[in-house]
């Protein structure tokens, strides 16, 4: 009998607690959930969510993930229509899957409605094209923007008497002089590891040689072109003047190597200048570097697009959050923390004078960098490209072998997705 009473008592208390929690939550107002990449800029927002809550009454819960896990989480969220996240941070090439499948909300009408507040024309036109629009409709707002960039050591280049290289020939000419005059300095460093970094750089290089990785109209793979041949040959030539272990370098190893003053040039990211090379706590080359466009004229664009889940029950609140994330005021506050998509920031001479990464990014955007593919098999294409380029850098394959293998792999992928029809 006593057990029965105790059981009933526990059940009653549990019921009261559950009802109370429910009432408290209902009283608190709307809560939206957000999936974010785990990076400093995103952490900054997390620290300042109170401001948004005060402004709108909407509570925001953020979950942080690494690159691959974020993709998997967003994919499971959308494919399973779980509605777990109202707002999702997508690597912008993911738009080729998420937006094409109708998983994200088309907020074109809201952009028009809130034009005065959102100021879409302030977003760089090229950035709008890459990170916001899919088939001409608004699906995302750009955040955590960056692009590939080329950096040199100004002190070394002053001594060898050469300006910043603008072509690959000039890079190799400078490399010869550096080897003669600075035998302890490696001419150039970059990410040679088999991951997305080397793939992004390869796309930029090939673009500089005059071609994309596939025909954007017919989806015919273009690894049998001269541009692809030049790109793989370039990797082989670069490998000879890169650090010996560069075939295993990811982004961080590359940042560190240049920051430690061990190389005279680096192929890196626009934000690397201010965040790494200009950081006196981590760099021995503060004030001795300069960044700009990739040699050869091909630079690839990176970055993220914030999108609203089509299954979200709080789309209006999610839109308010997106506007807050990239408002002109917010972009100005975050001027030191990653590149801005807004012209009012990157084209601002005062900002450019103080924040070198914003100046470099503006120059890169003005020169129309190449976009990563926004189609369904993007990551498959990128992974095979990273394997091919890494094989050449590590000496595992000749440029010709890597290129031929990649052309066949790309053809299989494009055929299997029904994108390319063989004649």
């Amino acid at each position, binding site marked *: 009998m006593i057990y029965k009473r105790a059981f009933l008592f526990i059940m009653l208390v549990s019921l009261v607690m559950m009802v109370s929690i429910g009432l408290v939550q209902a009283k608190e107002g709307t809560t939206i959930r957000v999936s974010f990449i785990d990076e400093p800029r995103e952490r900054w927002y997390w620290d300042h969510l109170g401001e948004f809550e005060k402004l709108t009454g909407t509570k925001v819960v953020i979950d942080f993930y690494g690159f691959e896990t974020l993709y998997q989480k967003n994919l499971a969220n959308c494919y399973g229509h779980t509605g777990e996240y109202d707002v999702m941070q997508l690597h912008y090439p993911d738009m080729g899957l998420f937006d094409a499948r109708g998983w994200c909300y088309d907020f074109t009408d809201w952009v028009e409605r809130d034009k005065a507040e959102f100021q879409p024309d302030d977003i760089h036109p090229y950035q709008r094209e890459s990170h916001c629009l899919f088939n001409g409709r608004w699906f995302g707002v750009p955040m955590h923007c960056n692009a590939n960039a080329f950096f040199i050591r100004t002190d070394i280049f002053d001594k060898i008497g050469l300006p910043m290289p603008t072509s690959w020939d000039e890079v190799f000419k400078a490399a010869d002089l550096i080897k003669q005059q600075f035998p302890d300095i490696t001419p150039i460093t970059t990410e040679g590891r088999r991951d997305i970094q080397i793939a992004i750089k390869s796309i930029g290089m090939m673009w500089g040689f005059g071609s994309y990785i596939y025909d954007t109209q017919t989806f015919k793979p273009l690894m049998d072109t001269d541009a692809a041949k030049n790109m793989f040959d370039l990797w082989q030539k670069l490998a000879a003047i890169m650090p010996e272990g560069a075939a*295993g370098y990811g982004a961080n190893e590359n940042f560190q190597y240049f920051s430690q003053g061990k190389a005279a040039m680096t192929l890196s990211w626009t934000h690397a200048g201010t965040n790494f090379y200009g950081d006196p706590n981590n760099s021995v080359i503060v004030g001795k570097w300069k960044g700009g466009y990739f040699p050869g004229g091909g630079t690839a664009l990176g970055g993220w697009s914030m999108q609203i889940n089509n299954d979200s029950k709080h789309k209006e609140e999610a839109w308010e959050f997106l506007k807050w994330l990239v408002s002109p005021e917010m972009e100005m506050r975050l001027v030191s923390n990653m590149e801005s998509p807004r012209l009012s920031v990157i084209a601002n001479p005062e900002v450019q004078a103080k924040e070198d990464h914003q100046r470099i990014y503006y120059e890169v955007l003005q020169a129309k960098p190449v976009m990563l593919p926004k189609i369904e098999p993007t990551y498959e294409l990128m992974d095979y490209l990273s394997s091919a380029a890494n094989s050449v850098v590590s000496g595992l394959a000749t440029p010709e072998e890597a290129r031929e293998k990649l052309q066949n792999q790309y053809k299989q992928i494009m055929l299997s997705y029904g994108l390319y029809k063989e004649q």
Partner: protein
Amino acid sequence: MGWIMKRRYVGYLYILPCLIILVILVVYPLYFSFRISLTDFTFGRPFANYIGSENYYQLFKDPIFIQSMVRTIFITIIAVLVEFICGLGSALILSRKFRGQNLIRTLILLPMMISPIVVALIWLLMYQPDFSILNYLIQMFGVDPPMWLTRPPWPIIGVTITEIWEWTPFFTMVCLSGLASLPLEPYEAAVTDGATGWQIFWKITLPLLTPLLLIGLLIRMIDVFRIFDIIYIMTEGGPGDYTSTMSIFVHRTGFIYRHLGMASASSYMMIIVITILTLILIRLLNRVGSQS
């Protein structure tokens, strides 16, 4: 209710909760993934078509998969053999009484207690050509250090050394517990008969330890066959696909390319290969068991 209490049924009733859990957590996922392996299911696409054994056929045509399988078997055999020899050797040394024995025993187990991700990061730094302590030590002998993770064949050797470093203590532990439980009588008799240390080891210690060692080999073989975390952190399967194992292949196919049908088929291939290897070892174990 009387019938239910009959002896023949009540046993089933007792194991029913366990069976239900087993069906939910093991049998159904196995059935589900097998069903998927017979389709062209790609995560994110609305429909999946039944394609029979096409995925399996494609796998055998894929040189990357075949190379991954051969590489996995190679790493498994080398790693388990070296771990076994080093583990047994260190256990024989540690089983003797000496000062600081307990401290050494604890220290030797440390690598196994560290998370594989941390182990991979530690060795990733050890293999860096610019500031590696390993390369510094090699250079002290006047030898040029290899490019551990970038120039073949060193990447395979590098990841295998890391795996061996982490899991040799497992064999040490297994052998130490085995040595502690061996009966003293055969040793006393052998000493009386004038057997040498070497003879005692080959004729008494090793045969008595064999059943335990085979179980250790079995566990480690299954474990090494699934090697993923160390390679993922250290090389991501590179350079090229040079260190791609079957687990790396499955992960890449399933979670990067999203081809879950193909990934399930390759998982089943893994299960088949590992089952064959396991059956061979179990037969060996049974034979040794019946002999002893």
